[in-house]
């Protein structure tokens, strides 16, 4: 539920100082106006003829009509006639009239007063209506514009509630119909006083709650998307126009409905994709994890046999060690991928010479590399890199591991690095089968394997590489190498703010 309390009493309608008919202010002001006109008349009487003086009263009636409408101005007309008679017509200070022609003057004065009052107050009403229409158009336009900028159902509801507060100048609550139904027994404190009215509103009828609050359903299509609760309007305010309220509610409801529909669609798509990934993963896990486990279990049970020849025993033990290592690699990849995807990886970047990372990656792969020579060519101009040593090492290990998979026992693997423009390029090259047709960028997606025969892992190695490289604002690509084989290329941004040379640092500690 969105609740917007209206702070302060100045709304668009309130600011215009509209006083509802029946207010006593208008009559009091009329009284004052007539008194002022009388005073002016008494002064002007010395120089002006009596009929001219009567015009002063007409001015008072007109002002009263313009300010306060028909009732007060009619009262002003009557009061003017009375005051005119009492103060200015002989015999003075009585309501008696000496000459009959004054009766005509009084009638005319009252009649003209009424006409002026009628015309002026109609003009005034029209002006107010025009202003109110403009207000409503403006409010609907503001709502439309604010809704266009909102994204997602929650934000959309927030916008509707905020705009409703501005348009109706009162405290507003917006109750999410969905959540309200879901939690019918566990209602919010604020909703409880209007519970009955909300329940009615949920069946698409506008109602007034017992507290005087206006309860408006937001209906789009067949569904109620929310319920707008407008607190009891203050007594001195223009009443809320039902048509305007309806337009407002319809526009808000449509926007909420659209936001919900697109959120649902996105969620459904995400679920479908997650489901696909999960089933691929499950298939991969059930097959690929079980294979090494089956080998280990089998070898271990055979090893119990005391009649085994020593070389057979050695071979089985080597198998157990190899398969366990493979299992460890696969689980490591799964964990890395999960962590990288869950966003739980914090980049601990430091200034590093690339050589150092390459060195530790090659050391870690010492056994896996076996007899395969690795030719490392690092250009001298490659600067220090601002990278996470552990993550970048992992990325290099995975790139090299990929090359090892496609390289025969004595085949050569190359690792090169150089500067190209404003990036550092790191390439790992092999002479394997290259890239299968159409693999291209898909090589870096999860669970994609270049060759189905290589069931060593889940096809996660390069996806992990990509995640790590992207964490460093770098790029990763795969090419077919000239003369056969694949080239996997990583680029990392070259930071220009290289650290000050360590050689400059003074040595403060004398070393014994």
């Amino acid at each position, binding site marked *: 539920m969105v609740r917007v309390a209206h702070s302060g009493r100045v709304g668009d309608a309130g600011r215009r100082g509209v006083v509802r008919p029946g207010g006593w202010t208008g009559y009091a002001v009329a009284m004052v106006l007539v008194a002022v006109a009388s005073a002016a008349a008494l002064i002007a009487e010395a120089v002006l003829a009596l009929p001219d003086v009567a015009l002063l009263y007409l001015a008072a009636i007109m002002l009263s009509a313009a300010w306060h409408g028909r009732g007060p101005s009619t009262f002003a007309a009557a009061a003017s006639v009375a005051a005119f008679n009492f103060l200015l017509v002989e015999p003075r200070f009585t309501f008696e009239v000496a000459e009959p022609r004054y009766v005509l003057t009084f009638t005319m004065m009252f009649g003209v007063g009424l006409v002026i009052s009628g015309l002026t107050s109609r003009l005034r009403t029209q002006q107010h209506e025009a202003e109110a229409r403009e207000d409503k158009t403006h409010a609907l336009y503001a709502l439309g514009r604010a809704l266009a900028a909102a994204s997602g159902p929650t934000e959309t509801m927030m916008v509707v509630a905020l705009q409703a507060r501005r348009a109706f100048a009162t405290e507003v609550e917006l109750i999410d119909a969905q959540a309200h139904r879901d939690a019918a027994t566990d209602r919010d404190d604020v909703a409880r006083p209007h519970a009955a009215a909300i329940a009615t509103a949920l069946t698409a009828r506008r109602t007034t709650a017992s507290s005087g609050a206006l309860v408006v359903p937001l209906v789009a299509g067949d569904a109620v998307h929310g319920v707008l609760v407008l607190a009891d309007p203050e007594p001195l305010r223009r009443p809320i126009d039902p048509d305007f309220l309806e337009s407002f509610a319809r526009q808000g409801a449509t926007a909420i409905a659209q936001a919900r529909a697109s959120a649902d669609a996105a969620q459904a798509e995400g679920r479908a994709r997650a489901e696909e990934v999960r089933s691929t993963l499950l298939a991969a896990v059930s097959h690929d994890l079980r294979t090494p486990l089956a080998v280990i279990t089998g070898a271990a049970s055979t090893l119990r046999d005391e009649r085994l020849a020593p070389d057979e025993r050695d071979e089985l033990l080597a198998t157990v*060690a190899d398969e366990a290592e493979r299992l460890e690699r696969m689980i490591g990849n799964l964990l890395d991928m999960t962590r990288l995807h869950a966003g739980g990886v914090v980049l601990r970047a430091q200034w590093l*010479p690339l050589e150092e990372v390459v*060195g530790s990656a090659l050391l870690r792969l010492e056994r896996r590399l076996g007899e395969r020579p690795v030719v*490392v060519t690092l250009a001298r101009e490659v600067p220090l890199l601002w990278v996470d040593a552990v993550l970048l090492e992992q990325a290099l290990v995975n790139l090299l591991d990929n090359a090892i998979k496609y390289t025969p026992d004595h085949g050569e693997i190359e690792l090169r690095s150089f500067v190209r423009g404003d990036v550092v390029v790191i390439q790992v090259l092999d002479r394997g089968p290259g890239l299968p047709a159409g693999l291209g960028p898909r090589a870096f997606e999860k669970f994609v394997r270049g060759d189905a025969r290589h069931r060593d892992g889940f096809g996660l190695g390069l996806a992990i590489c990509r995640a790590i490289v992207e964490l460093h604002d770098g790029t990763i690509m795969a090419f077919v190498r000239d003369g056969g084989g694949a080239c996997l290329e990583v680029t990392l941004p070259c930071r220009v703010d290289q650290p000050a040379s360590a*050689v400059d640092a003074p040595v*403060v500690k004398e070393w014994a």
Partner: protein
Amino acid sequence: MSADGKLVLVVEDEVAMRRFLRASLQAQGFRFVEAATVREALVAITTHNPDLVLLDLGLPDGDGIALTRKIREWSRAPILVVSARGRESDKVEALDAGADDYLTKPFGMNELLARMRVAFRHHDAELGERAPLVDVGELHLDLERRRVTLAGVEVHLTPIEYRILALLGRNLGKLLTHQQILTEVWGQAYATHTHYVRVHMAELRKKIEREPARPRFLVTEPGVGYRLRDRDDAGRGG
């Protein structure tokens, strides 16, 4: 290696790991005490006074790093910490808290024995005389005369390069964190300037390694530090 019936305390909550370690260490001639929790470990240390502690940082009931600190308050026995890959900050913290080295799970017996060997040797060296000569294959360090030779040819190092190499040499086979190297070579004020170490290490490698990108002597432990690889050190790739 001669175990001489040395007493090893294994602090590890996994029963299977304890079983494997007990069988393997006893087969090597070590005596074996075990603890599954931090509390048991503290009791075992006070009652048995072990020669070496093998401590798993992932204990369920407490903080292995705090335990390391507590042990260091009154025991110089080597501490080897065991942790999972990807927890480099834990390793650094444990090493800076006084642990001697670490192993990443899963590890092989050869790797464990190599680490234990290095740890015992340092422990003994701390108690006795420091060897003035360090030999690692073709690399020869004479700490008394401040001379470094590679395959019999003298290598000219800058003073800082020499200090780094000598520090690693005196701790042959032992892992030193970036912090430890910085503090020893540059002093406490430079403890955050880890790239100093890296840059000088790169220069040092150019002078003593045949292939600086595939070092034989100066091994990097990513995110943790460096060690001068011992002749018989099984290394991380082992």
